[in-house]
Structure formats: C-alpha cells, structure tokens
C-alpha cells in the first residue's frame, strides 16, 4: 500500500497545519519573549533544525510504520512541512529530536538517521519509548513517545491510507464524509 501526499494533506487536515492555529504562534512567541533574547536553541544544541527533524523522523518512520508501506519519506516530509511551524508543539518536536539524537550519538556513535534500522529500533526501546505513555512534559521516554513515535503514528493512522491498512478508510480525525459509515464491507 502506498502513502501519498494526499494522505499527508489529509493528516494535516485532521491534525492541523501551520497557520491553522494562530494561538500556537502566540504561545511560542510568548515563550521566546520570556527567555533570554540571546538564546538560540538550535545554536546551543537543545533543538534540531528542521532538516534534521525531517531526516530523523523519516528514519524513525521506517521503524514504526509497517514494512509494506511505500511512499513513507514523501509522506513524512509533507506532513512535517505543515507541522513544523513556530508553535510550542513544533518546538517540542525539535527539542525532543535533538535529545534523541544526542542519545543516539552517545550510545550508538551516530545520529538516528545514520543508524541501521535494527539500531534505530533498539535505540527507541533503550530510550523506553515503547513502554512509555506519551507525555509532552514527561521524561525523555514519554516525550520521545509523544513528539516522535506518536507524532508519526498519529499522522499515519489518521490518514485514509493508514486507516485502510487496518480496515477503516475514514479513521477518527479524518473528515472523510458522512457516507462511509453506511457502507458495508468492501
């Protein structure tokens, strides 16, 4: 089964894209104003740049998405293009990706994107993201689960192709119309 840019657009329609929630930008701006104006989270290594976020999440997607899916890279990139705005949520993604890459370098000698699939899977489990409950304000494991693993799983399984993969072409969160519930199984 192939993920398409339409799926990514659908995931963004379900979860929101840049500009959809001006509030997020305000909160991020507030956070920025509250901090030291000289601070640059990318420069000091506490947040990843967007290219690193894309590379990392694409690499993680190859582990947490089913193996029979095609088009994963383009799906993730399109989704993140809408998702990585100036909101506090996007800041959380950038910061958590930086933290995950720091652990990858420490434990496996390379960032996530440069690890082979088995090591990526091992890293996520060593971090504890498999057993953790997601929490945006929690431990590293809980934040990796929230901002990395579940960010990707939410995008996939709220999209038509992701839903169809498990038997529902109009999954919760996707505005797939008020007809599919009336139809019998294909």
């Amino acid at each position, binding site marked *: 089964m192939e993920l398409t840019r339409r799926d990514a657009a659908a995931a963004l329609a379900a979860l929101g894209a840049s500009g959809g929630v001006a509030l*997020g930008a*305000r909160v991020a701006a507030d956070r920025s104003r509250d901090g030291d104006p000289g601070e640059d989270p990318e420069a000091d290594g506490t947040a990843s740049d967007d290219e690193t976020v894309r590379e990392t999440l694409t690499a993680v997607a190859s582990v947490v998405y089913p193996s029979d899916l095609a088009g994963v890279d383009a799906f993730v990139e399109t989704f993140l293009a809408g998702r990585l705005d100036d909101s506090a949520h996007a800041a959380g993604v950038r910061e958590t990706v930086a933290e995950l890459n720091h652990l990858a370098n420490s434990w496996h000698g390379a960032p996530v994107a440069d690890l082979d699939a088995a090591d990526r899977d091992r890293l996520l489990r060593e971090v504890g993201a498999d057993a953790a409950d997601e929490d945006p304000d929690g431990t590293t494991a809980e934040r990796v689960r929230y901002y990395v693993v579940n960010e990707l799983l*939410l995008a996939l399984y*709220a999209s038509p192709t992701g839903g169809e*993969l498990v038997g*529902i072409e109009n999954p919760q969160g996707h505005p*797939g119309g*008020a007809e599919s519930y009336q139809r019998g199984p294909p």
Partner: protein
Amino acid sequence: MSGAGLAGDERSDVDAIDRTPVPDADVCVVGAGPAGALVADRLAGDRDVVILDAGPRFDPADRLARQERAIRPSYGRPDVWDVGGERDAHESAGDRYYPLNHARVKGVGGSTLHWQGMVMRLHEDDFNSGSERGVGPDWPIDYADLRPYYAAAERELGVAGASDNPYAPPREEPHPMPPFEPSYSDSLFAEACESLGIDMHSVPNARNSEPYEGRSPCVGYGTCQPVCPSGAKYDATVHVERAEERGATVIDRAPVERLEHDGDDRVTAAVYATPDGERHRQTADAFVVAAGGVETPRLLLLSASDRYPDGLANGSGHVGEFFMDHLFAGAGGTLDEPTRQNHVGFYTSACDQFYDEADESRAPFKLEFFNYAGPSPVESALSGDDWGDPLRDRLRSEYGNHVAMGGLVEQRPDADSRVTLAGDRTDDRGNPVPRIEWTVGDRALDTIERANEIQVSILEELGADVEWVAGPDATGPAYHHMGTTRMSDDPDRGVVDADCRTHDLGNCWIASSSVFPTSGAMNPTLTIAALALRVADGVEARLSRGT
C-alpha cells in the same frame, strides 16, 4: 499547526478585553451555554442583554488541536476544553462518585461544546410521572405547553430527524433536516430486532445532515463527543454569536459569585469577578440564571443573605436537592463479520419501545444502537507497546467486528441526592465549591438490569459473543445534570414556578435542566432549549408590562 498541547491558552487576550458592566442593561443572563444563549438571542435586538460566563471564549481555530487532544492518550476528557484546576474544584460524596469535571465545559458554548448532540423530546407521560407512573411530582406544565417550543427549538438548533418513531410524542411538522441514514451496523441489528419483535427507528441529531444556516454538514471527523471541528454539530456559540450580532454583550472569564437583592424581593445585581482580580456589579431589570444543574444551585446558595439565610430563591428549602442524572446501561461484543464501526461519533438508530412501560417499579428507558463500538484504531495505535508490523497486525485484529448497544435510564428524584456547598474547600476565588451527593435508587438499578436483558437478547440473536455488560454495578452518569431547582406551582415544593420564574424573586428566572421535576430518560438538551425559549417569552412579557 499547533499540537494538542497548545489549545486553550487565550492569555494574551485576557487583559485587552473590557469586562466592565453594561450600563442600563435590561436582562442579565448568567451562563453562555445553550439555555443562556437561546434566551439572550431571543431577547437581543429588543432588549439590552448582557451574558456573563465563568469560562473563556474559545477560539474556533483551536478545534483541530482540541480534536488532537481528544485522540491522544495523554489528555483526559476534561483537558479537551480546559476544565479542571482550582476554578472547577468540587467534592463528591454520597453513594457514588460523580465525575463532575468530565461532565461539563465552562465557557462560551457551555457543555454543548462536548456533547454528543442527541435531541429527543420528552414523552407526554414524562410530564406526569406522579400521576401516570406513581413516581415523583407531575410537572406543572404538560407536553402540550412545551410542544410549540420543542418545534422552535428544533429549528434553532438544527435537527436532522424523521417521523418514523411510533413511540415518540406527537409532532406538528417534519424535522428541519432529513435524518442521517442508518449505519451498516444498524442493518445488522435490524435483522436481529425483527426476529425478536423489537422496533428500531431513527434518532434526531442536532447535527447537520445538509448545510444549515451557514453551517457545514457533517464531514465525518468521528470525534463528535467531545469536539466537532466542522461545526456541523450544534453548539451554543451559534446563538451567542447571533445574540452579539443583535446587540448583546458577552463578558467571558467572569464567574458570577453572588446575586444581590433589594428589600422588595427583586434581584438587583450579579457580582462577578474578572481575570484582573476585580469585582464588578452587573445591574439589570431581569436576571436569568442559566448555569446548569450544578452551578445554578451553587450560585443561589452562595447568594445567601440576612433576608435569605438559606440561599436565594430557597424558601422551599429545595435548592440543590433532587440532583438527577441518567444512568447508562450497555452491552457489547464481537461478531464473526465486519461491522464498520468508528466512522462517525454519533448513533443513527434507537428503540423507544419499552419507554412508556414505566411504572412505580420500572423506570422509563431507551435503547441505542452504537456506531462506535470497540477500539478506534488511531487511538489504539498511540497506546500500545508495539510499532511497525506487530502494531499493524494488532490494529487489524482489534478493529472491525465489534457491536454494542447503550441505553439511558431515568433516575427517581430523591432529596438526598443533592448539590450543597462544601464545608471547607474553596475555589480559586475563595468561594465554597459544589459538593455533590449522588445517590441512585433501586428502581433505576432494576431497570438497568431490564435494559441489559433486552440488549443481551438482541446481541445474542445477532450472533455476537457478548463480552461486556454495563449493569447496575458498572453503570455511570450520562452527564445530564437535572433537578436541583425543581419546578412546581407550590412555593413549598419547588424553586421556580411553571414559567421557570423563582417563587421568591419576581425578576429572576432559571433556564436549565435544573428545573426538571423528573428527568425522563431522554437526553435533556432539546427540553432545555424549549424551556429557554419559553423563559425568554416570559421575560419579555414581564418587561413589556413593566413588572
């Protein structure tokens, strides 16, 4: 996009808004939920109306983020609409825990922001429960009194429905919109019900089956309860916004802490707090308290004075008593075939066949055929300890063949089931929090068992493996707060009269399910809306007469 964690923080707006009182207001409405919104909308234009609400004005642009909260496991139900904290502190006592903050939303739109949107009329006997069923008092009004207001309420909310329910009370005209078509799983249930001689029929939804008054038809987000991003599900922001367009003033984040009165038994002012810590007095000629079944009695009790030491409008002593909710009865299981669940978040078929068999020992109840049985794959995906192919395989095995039924059961009014003020716990402004003592009697519990029997018989006829039954031990509330300022012609037996005007104060009305003397087993919001429209007419008539 902002993620789920960002919704609900309107801090930057707080200081910029003028929250000072409106001079020379005709009507002050306390609460911007459906009742308050409809009253305000009906009166605005001809009257200067001000609406005070304890909660914020939510940004419609945040709805996708709130939907994400509804799906993500990190957030509980109260988090979706920012309920909780010291503002919403409460105590639960009595036989059963009452999860109040799961059961309400504070803010413009009120609990219609998170409701499911099911809108049935009460049955004729519901208005005469004492004489027809031997339980509780009769209402001082009949179905016929409310019937035109029901029709008006259906037009206001926008109701999709059909006239195929042989057990529904008589109606004068079709619903404003055609009904939602039955679901695929309804067709499976229909065969089983036909074999058992059980009737299925459509169910009215306050949800657009087609474009209605500028609002979208349902597009199938599937998260109706607790948030509809498309606006197809009615919520009271519709009427708040219309009231504002017609001149009404809305003051949000303005919890009313007490009502003041004069020596002539008239309310003179609503005293409210604002985020800057100030207190203000909103004066008006008439006051309509529309703060729901818990905060309405709380406000009256907080307004105790030397003249009314037991609380305002509490000459009967019944303010806060007879707290009722509907009890849930349910059962579910799995079939060996696909059932196509969780495409939408509402149901399309019901059964009222057993409703009017109610008597002293059997409560009225209704049955619902769910379209959302079993796990939602996207929610399930976020909670496991697996990913990749094992997760895909688990989701496939979990999803697809669940079926379930629900039902609501009436709770008998009981003075010991009540809302009072907590003795030593206060909210963020130092006011005693509501203390809920929720008790459920044997009539309701026995009726839950009866509902379960029918549900299980249908499921078994369907060929399902019945895997769960929500019976008397597992029941819970449907989040319908009723009964705490009951309506009665007798000032000794009720808080408001047949016009929902308080017996004790001539210029104070209550628009809320708190006035229900008995609850029936139908979702209450259409009746709340009908009563609110009737209250608006009563207020207008009084203001016109200058009394």
